């Protein structure tokens, strides 16, 4: 399957994320407010309490719908996060395409970030007025970089595992097909 360009992905997915997130929010709002107006009204013919309460049914249906739209939004958000991480790690200098070398490079950048943060903090901390603010900023930026790089490591290892699993599945399928071909046909 052909991979879409970064611009195409953003053009296609961002509106979907916005629409799905807003719809999920609307359903969540409905799940909170609607039961108040129909409280105490039971649905005739359903004898299972409290599931015959209209308020409960509206809450359950709206929550379910909200979750469906949230999952739809999340599936697009994951792709956008993937693209964002790819762009960020490339900007940081991790341009390696071979998976294990890429993971090792991510690790080197994590170590370097830790070292730079540890080296900077003792100098920044004693600064009057800005010291604690700058220390917090350095810690947060380092944490952000860690998360991005660790996510990239996980994603890369996942891709390797997926590829290996597919190869294994293909090999097993091939074996099964060959075994099937060797079987004498009952006729």
């Amino acid at each position, binding site marked *: 399957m052909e991979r879409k360009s970064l611009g195409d992905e953003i053009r296609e997915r961002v509106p979907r994320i916005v629409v799905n997130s807003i719809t999920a929010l609307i359903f969540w709002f409905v799940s909170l407010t609607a039961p108040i107006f129909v409280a105490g009204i039971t649905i005739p013919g359903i004898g299972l309490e409290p599931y015959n309460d209209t308020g409960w049914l509206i809450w359950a249906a709206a929550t379910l719908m909200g979750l469906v739209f949230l999952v739809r939004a999340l599936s697009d958000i994951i792709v956008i996060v993937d693209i964002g991480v790819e762009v960020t790690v490339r900007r940081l200098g991790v341009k390696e395409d071979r998976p294990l*070398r890429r993971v*090792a*490079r991510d*690790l*080197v950048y994590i*170590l370097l970030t830790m*070292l730079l943060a540890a*080296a900077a903090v*003792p100098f920044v901390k004693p600064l009057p007025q800005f010291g604690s603010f700058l220390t917090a900023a350095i810690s947060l930026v380092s944490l952000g970089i860690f998360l991005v790089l660790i996510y990239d490591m996980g994603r890369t290892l996942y891709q390797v595992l997926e590829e290996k699993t597919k190869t294994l599945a293909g090999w097993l399928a091939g074996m099964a097909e060959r075994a099937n071909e060797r079987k004498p046909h009952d006729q």
Partner: protein
Amino acid sequence: MTSESMIFVIIYLFTLLSAALEMVPISVAALLGAFLTVWFGLSYGVFTYEEATGFIDMKILGLLIGTMIVFEVAYRSGIFRLMALYAIKLSGGDSRLLFIFVCLTSAAVSMFLSDSTALLMIAAAATTISKFMDQDPAPYVVSAAIMVNLGGTSTLIGSVSNMIIGVNAELSFTEFITYLAPCEFALWALTMATLYFNYRHVLGEKKAVPTYSPWESVEDKSLFNKSALLLVLFLGLFMIHDKLNLSPEAVALGCAVLALSLSNLDPSDIFRSLDWETIFFLSGFSIIVKGLEGTGLLAQLSQGFLAVSGNNPPLATAIMLWMSGLASSVVSNIAVALTFTPMIQEIQGLNTTALWSALVLGTNLGGAATPMSGVVVVMAMNTLKREGTTVSFSEFTKIGSLTTIIQLGFSTIYLIARFGLVS
């Protein structure tokens, strides 16, 4: 582990990984690591500035630089080219004999020359002759790389890791040879046999070589004679340096001064040819290891090593050999030697000579297991690429790891038998 120790471990790992991944040249990685070690060491009060200035072992640097100068002058005199040309001539165009000569010359030359210089020389000769013989240069160049890595295992000046271990263990030149030469020569035979069996089907038929006199390659006879005499003096002094109460670095530096004075070569040209990458890597990494040592981590590691080996001499020796061998197949053997040396210095109650010998063998033998194990293999791969032949990663690893495992296996038996570790 305290946060201070953690920082030094991070610096160590950062340096090794960034050098192994070639993110920066190895010398830059080591100098960056050294800078961070000094920065954090002084900030956390692990050591003082005065202590930090003594972290670089001048004895090892003196031995390394002195040996480099002596052999650079000898290399320029054409002595090693003459050896290689004689080997080719003696083979008489028999590809099998030529293969054995290439292997033997590679190992013999690398006993004295730095591995990279030895490989450059042998690879140039091997590719020329394989072109003439109309053969694939890969078996010759790959075998040369493996044999160059093996050569010099038993001499104090055979490799940088040997110099580090020799100086720290206070092993003399002759002790080195006494403990390790039998093993090295047996390994030459074993490795050559393995390489020959691996490549015997691709070695071509006999073909006549053009008649030439190897002596014609010597351009300056006077320089050749002086270099030959100097090499004899250099090796002679190394044989008896402990009896003369001379340290190895004094012999190396003294002979280097003599070589510079007698050769009439431009000293600045000689200095430019030295392997500064290795000199700076060694200096930088020494500082990183000293930082790690200052936190007491290496002492803890050596206690852990003793606990794992259960104070059992054969097991401890085997663990040291295989651990250093496997580590050297992944990272620089200089780094491995510098890391393991303080660990062995901490050990008491075991046969430390056997452990030092295991470390020498491990750090040398691990350098040609994969195309990424050492600079010699990388250079061999690049030479072949320039010749239009590609040896894949798995192709090299197949033969490289096979020879490494055979070498480490034999060395384990040798060390146990040589030092009488099983009573």
